[in-house]
């Protein structure tokens, strides 16, 4: 093989490898993005049915109940405008509390219940998960402009 051919081959190998890697990364990226929705958006049907997403807000006061197995929890997440029911099987984080901020990751089940496979509360008492804070903010904004909630879009 001539030197020039060898260099061309080297460049071709590198280009092909980089292309394959880029395709791999971007594909994984696209299929694994987790979007965030507020309870209001979920109730409106804007959230996807077949895909994992996050929902956040406050744990509604008095909504937490446990099944007899002790580890399946039901609670409702609210952004003060709308609420959605959430089921989670597992141990809730230490800072999970009624009336406090929470973010749940999971899917919508057929009966409109959100089945969480992960529940996040934050590591500090006074800290509000940013997603939960933004859900509340959006709900408050929407209530202020209640005249035409649809017109806002």
């Amino acid at each position, binding site marked *: 093989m001539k030197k020039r051919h060898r260099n061309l081959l080297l460049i071709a190998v590198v280009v092909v490898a980089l292309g394959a890697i880029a395709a791999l990364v971007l594909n994984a990226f696209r299929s694994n*993005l987790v979007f965030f929705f507020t309870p209001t958006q979920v109730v409106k049907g804007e959230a996807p049915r077949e895909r994992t997403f996050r929902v956040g807000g406050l744990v509604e006061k008095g909504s937490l109940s446990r099944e007899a197995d002790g580890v399946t929890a039901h609670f409702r997440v609210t952004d003060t405008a709308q609420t959605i029911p959430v089921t989670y099987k597992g141990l809730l984080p230490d800072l999970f509390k009624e009336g406090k901020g929470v973010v749940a990751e999971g899917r919508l089940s057929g009966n409109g219940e959100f089945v969480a496979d992960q529940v996040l509360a934050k590591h*500090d008492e006074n800290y509000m998960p940013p997603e939960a804070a933004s859900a509340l903010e959006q709900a408050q904004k929407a209530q202020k402009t209640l005249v035409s909630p649809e017109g806002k879009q």
Partner: protein
Amino acid sequence: MIPELGNFALIVALLMALTQSILPLAGAARNIPSWMSVARPAARAQSLFVAIAFACLAYSFLSNDFSVINVTQHSYSRLPAVYRFTATWGSHEGSLLLWTLILGLWTFAVTLFSRHLPDDMVARVIGVMGLVSCGLLLFMLLTSNPFLRMPMAPDGSDLNPLLQDPGMVIHPPILYMGYVGFSVAFAFALAALISGKLDASWARWSRPWTTAAWSFLTLGIMMGSWWAYYELGWGGWWFWDPTENASLMPWLVGTALIHSLAVTEKRGSFKAWTVLLAIAAFSLSLLGTFLVRSGVLSSVHSFASDPARGLFILAFLAVVIGGSLLLFAFRANQVGLGGRFALVSRESFLMANNILLLTACGSVLLGTLYPLFIDALGLGKISVGPPYFNSVFVPLVLPLLFLVGVGPLARWKQASVPDLVSRLKWGFAASVVVALLLPFTMGAWKPMVAVGYLSALWIVVGVAINVQSRLRSGAGWSANFYGMNLAHLGVAVTVIGITMVSAYESERNVRMNVGDTITLQGYTFRFNGVKHIDGPNYTAERGALEVTRNGNPVTTLYPEKRTYLASGMPFSDSAINYGFTRDLYTALGEPLDGGAWSVRLFHKPFVVWIWIGAVLMALGGVLAISDRRYRAALRKQGRAVA
């Protein structure tokens, strides 16, 4: 009085840092020896004054001076003394001070171990490090002063319970030793760019420092992973949390850098590339520190956010990264290409290593920063979770592991493929056979386990053949060579740990009444109820879980559910029985009716291998630094000067 003294020390340190950077850099540019000779004393004085400031802050914490805002917010009169001391770096301000202190330590070390370097090089390296110190000291004094006062508060609001752990004593300092250590490699790279002397001796000077920083970073990440494992109660050893990613990115680039430096030293190639990597490693360290500390990323590591800080951080990063890249752009054409190499050679393998490591780093960067950008642009909130990182990382790491096995056996410049094949074919065949058979011993055969074993065994085979041929050739001891092989063995050990725990861990979340038993992988856990106990600054319910195997007692585990007095924060303290081939992990959930509790139980096979492997990698780094080559150069130069 003491806090004021600390504040004053910071101001003096800033003046010293200015002297340490301006005079030596200008002196080196205009070749004025007396200006250059200021570098060492100014740098030492700067580190001394930062150390005084740090001591003042530590004293304020230890003496419960609740007139200092920082102490009030992060300490508590009943906090044990050791955690009052560690609370010194438990806040944004304090952790910046620790960062600056460690930068001072590295600078001090450079002033000690640079006797063999030319004066202008020393002046430039110390000058560049002084500029970094200036930036951090300014940042602290302008936006994040740890010594601010207020009227004396009755008591503090306590340190976050998660940080009240022995891990807090060592994890942050060691991790910072790694982060900040890359500043030395960065300073060497910039000094070389400024002077235009990028040669093999530059690479040889830079190498031990870079390897030292890399070893610290490896240990720091390992400790962080272990801490998260036992502290967060989730039993995971890596969460792809943005803060973990922030430490992983400089590690990946740093790993690329130590390999690329080897090429630059031995063959004179990759010079421009090596310089770029040194800049990138330190930039990512800075980015990581600031991302984590500024509150941009929400996690256990982040503290209150403040727009002024964010602005300063952005400006500082822009100056450091932009400035060094600009310098690089101006000087890169003078760097030269170095020795040529063939398509199959040690160099080409190392080039592939670098491409893979950098792509891995890029994919982590994408997954970490993209959600921040989208949020900043107001386009909504998204998150990128473990599935993305896992699906990208595994295909990138597998070829990398293959290279670890074969790369060190290839010759520099031009390697012969038939020769490599004939040396490795039996080892490869044996690895395949063993890798296919081993998963059966765990009960269930899984393809990913076979792949994991194959990668690990392949590395072991590569190391064994390499060591054997060196012994046979009669070449003597080389710390560098054995250090590399030890680190590569560490990679294999970590890979086995990751493979086993990912494939075979079992978890149970259950309700347990007093007297209930649960059996997990042959281990029977009996719940003996909880007892109320009082800690120094918390109260707790302590559960007792008796573990037996085939009727023989193994251990009793005592997980706790604590409530901290000052903050009222609940916290689950897990209890773990460590073992060479498995960990038994327990944590308490919530009290249920009738004395029952929800309990989390894990059986984690080979999980400690992950961290043992990381320790081996770091030890390999330490061994490599001890190589005679670096000291021989030192002695020779020392004699020449004397």
